C-alpha cells in the first residue's frame, strides 16, 4: 500500500516522462451507464424534495422583490428593495426582530443550563433511571400547540390554573384567605411564552447532553481522579470541554427552531403585549394584511437571521472554548 503511494508521489514530482495512469477507455462509458442505473431510481425523490423544499423558497425570494397585496391586485409589479426597506424601518418589524432575538437567546440558554443539570443527574445510576429518563423526555414529544395550550389554560390561567391553585393551597396552609392571584400572562407575557418554550426544549438539550456525558471516556476521568482532581475540577477540565461539541449542537439546533417559533406566541398571547416575534408578524402581514410582498421579505429576513445566528453562535462558542483550552 505504502509503496504504491510512494510511487504515485514520485510520479507527481516529474510529470513529463511517465504516461498518465491508464483509464479504461471502453469501461468508462459502461461504468457511466452503470452509475446512472444506480442513481436513476433516486431521481423521483430528489425531484420531489426540490419541488417541496427549494421551489417555495425561490418563489418567496421572488415575491419579496414584488409589490403584491391581495387588496390592491392592480398594483402588482417589481418593487426592488422597497419591501426590505419597509421591513427594516417599520417600528413593529424592528420590535419583532428584537423580541425574536431575546426569546431565542433566553430559551436556548436557560434550557441548555437546565438540560445540562438534569443530564448530569440522570448520568448517575439509580433505580428507575429508565422510567425517569422517559418521563423527562415527554415534554418534547407533545405537539407544540398542545403544549402551549396546556401552559395557557392548565397552568397560567388566573381563575383555574395550577399555579394560582397552588398559591391558594399554600396560603390556606398558613391560614390566609386572600392569596395573591396574579394574571401571569398579563403580568409577564414574554416570560410566560419563554417558560412554556423552555419547558418544551429542556428535554431536547438534556438528551443531547446526556449522549455527550455517556460518551465520555471513563479512563480519562479515572486518570484525572488519580491526578488529584476533585469532582468539580473534573467537570471543569474534563467533562465541560468534552461537552463542547454537544453544547454547540444543542444551541444551534435550538436556535434554529426557536427563531422560527410560531405556535407558542400565537397560542399564549396571540402576539399581544409586545410578544410578537418575526414569524408571528409574517403571519399577520400575510394572512391579515394580505401583503404578500412584505411578508415574503420578512420571511427572507428570518432565514438570513437564522443563518446569521447559527454562524455567530458557532463562532463564539468555538473561540470561547479555544481560549479556554489555550489557558
Amino acid at each position, binding site marked *: 500500500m505504502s509503496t504504491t503511494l510512494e510511487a504515485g508521489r514520485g510520479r507527481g514530482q516529474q510529470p513529463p516522462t511517465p504516461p498518465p495512469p491508464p483509464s479504461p477507455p471502453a469501461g468508462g462509458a459502461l461504468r457511466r451507464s452503470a452509475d446512472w442505473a444506480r442513481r436513476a431510481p433516486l431521481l423521483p425523490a430528489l425531484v420531489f424534495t426540490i419541488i417541496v423544499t427549494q421551489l417555495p423558497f425561490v418563489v418567496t425570494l421572488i415575491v419579496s422583490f414584488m409589490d403584491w397585496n391581495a387588496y390592491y391586485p392592480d398594483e402588482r409589479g417589481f418593487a426592488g428593495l422597497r419591501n426590505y426597506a419597509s421591513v427594516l424601518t417599520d417600528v413593529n418589524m424592528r420590535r419583532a426582530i428584537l423580541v425574536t432575538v431575546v426569546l431565542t437567546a433566553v430559551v436556548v440558554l436557560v434550557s441548555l443550563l437546565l438540560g445540562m443539570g438534569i443530564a448530569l443527574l440522570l448520568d448517575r445510576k439509580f433505580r428507575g433511571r429508565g422510567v425517569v429518563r422517559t418521563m423527562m423526555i415527554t415534554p418534547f414529544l407533545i405537539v407544540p400547540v398542545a403544549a402551549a395550550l396546556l401552559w395557557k389554560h392548565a397552568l397560567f390561567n388566573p381563575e383555574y390554573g395550577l399555579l394560582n391553585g397552588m398559591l391558594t393551597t399554600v396560603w390556606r396552609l398558613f391560614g390566609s384567605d386572600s392569596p395573591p392571584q396574579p394574571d401571569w400572562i398579563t403580568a409577564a407575557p414574554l416570560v410566560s411564552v419563554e417558560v412554556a418554550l423552555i419547558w418544551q426544549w429542556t428535554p431536547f438539550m438534556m438528551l443531547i447532553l446526556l449522549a455527550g456525558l455517556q460518551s465520555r*471516556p471513563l*479512563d*480519562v476521568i*479515572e*486518570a*484525572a*481522579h*488519580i*491526578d*488529584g*482532581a*476533585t469532582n468539580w*475540577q473534573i467537570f471543569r*477540565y*474534563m467533562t465541560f*470541554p*468534552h461537552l*463542547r461539541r454537544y453544547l454547540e449542537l444543542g444551541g444551534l439546533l435550538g436556535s434554529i427552531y426557536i427563531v422560527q417559533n410560531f405556535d407558542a406566541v400565537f397560542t399564549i398571547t396571540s402576539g399581544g403585549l409586545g410578544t410578537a416575534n418575526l414569524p408571528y408578524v409574517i403571519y399577520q402581514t400575510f394572512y391579515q394584511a394580505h401583503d404578500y410582498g412584505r411578508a415574503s421579505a420578512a420571511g427572507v429576513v428570518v432565514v438570513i437571521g437564522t443563518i446569521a445566528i447559527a454562524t455567530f453562535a458557532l463562532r463564539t462558542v468555538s473561540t470561547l472554548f479555544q481560549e479556554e*483550552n489555550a489557558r
Partner: protein
Amino acid sequence: MASVTYDRASRIYPGSEKPAVDALDLQIADGEFLVLVGPSGCGKSTSLRMLAGLEDIDRGAIRIGDRDVTHLKSKDRDIAMVFQSYALYPHMTVGDNMGFALKIAGVSKDEITKRVAGAAKILDLEPFLDRKPKALSGGQRQRVAMGRAIVRSPQVFLMDEPLSNLDAKLRVQTRTQIAALQRRLATTTVYVTHDQVEAMTMGDRVAVLRAGILEQCDTPLRLYQEPANVFVAGFIGSPGMNIADFRLEDGQAVLGRARLPLTTAALTALSKENADHVVVGFRPESLDLVTEQVAGAFPVDVGVVEELGSDAFLHGSLPELRQDAGPLGETIVARVDPARPPAKGERVYLRIQQGKEHLFSPSTGLRLPT
C-alpha cells in the same frame, strides 16, 4: 518513595460470590519494580486498581509506606498511573497533559513549566509539547502517559499493561527504556502485564496470579527455576514447560519408554501422599536429541520445527501415547540445535536431562523436592 503492602486485600464485585482478588498478601519494598502477571481475568488489573483507589477494597487493607490508604480517595494517595489506553486528556496539549496534576495541586506556573520541560527531556518529547494527543503516534502517546506520571514524582507508579498497544519492535525497545527509567528514578513501581516475557525482563520480582489468588511471588529467575506449583511452571517460560503425568514404577517415573530415576526425597514425599503417579515438568531446553539405544530415550514424531535463527523448537507427538498423556496432551516441545534441525515427519529420540526435571504432587499440584 514508599513501600506498598497488600494486607489480605480482597475485592468482590457486586453480584458475584467469588472474589476477583482473594486475600492478596504482598509486600513491595521501597524502590522495587514488581510485576503482576497472569492470564486474563486473573485479577491482576483489579489488584492494581485497588491500589489506585479505582476499585473498593472489600476486605483487608492496603498501605503505602505507613499510611493506610484502604479508604482514601485516589487523589489523596500520591500515586500516578499509566493506563493501557494511555487515557490522555484529548483536548489538552502534551504539555498541559503532563502539567495537569501539578496545576490541580496549585504549583506555580514557572515550576510547572520547569518540571514538564525536565520530564519532556528525559522522554524525548520536547518537540511535541504543543501538540494535541491525537497528532502523536502510539509510541509518543505512550511516552506522554509516562511523562504525566513522572512529572508528579509520586510515591508509587502504577502501570496497567502500558505496552500492549505498541507494535512488537517498539514494545521491546520501550520495555528496556521503562525499566531503565525506573532504576534511575528509584520509584516503587507496580506493573501489570499478561506478557510473561515483559514480566521476566522488567521486574525485580514477579507475582503470578490466577483466579484472584497469588500463586507465587519471587525473582524472575527463581520463578523459572523453581516454580512453586504446576500453574506457575506452565505459565512462566516461552515456549511453555512440557508437563505430563508419569506412573511410579520401582522408584522411577515412567511414561511410555521415558524413564526418570527419582531421588529419595521425592519418593518419600510421594509415598506420604500414597501417590501412584507424579506430575513431571521439563523445559524444552532440558531435552537432548539422542539415539534410540540410550537409556530413557523416548521416540517423538516431529510435527513442526520452528526455526528462529538462534533457536529451533521442535513440536512433536509421542507415538506411544495417543490417549492418556495427561496435561502434556499429544505435543511435546523441545529445543534443538538450530544448525541441524530434524526434518518434519522424522522420528527422533529425546531424553530428559538428568536433574532438570520438575516434580509436582499429583493431588495438590505443589512442587516436590528433586
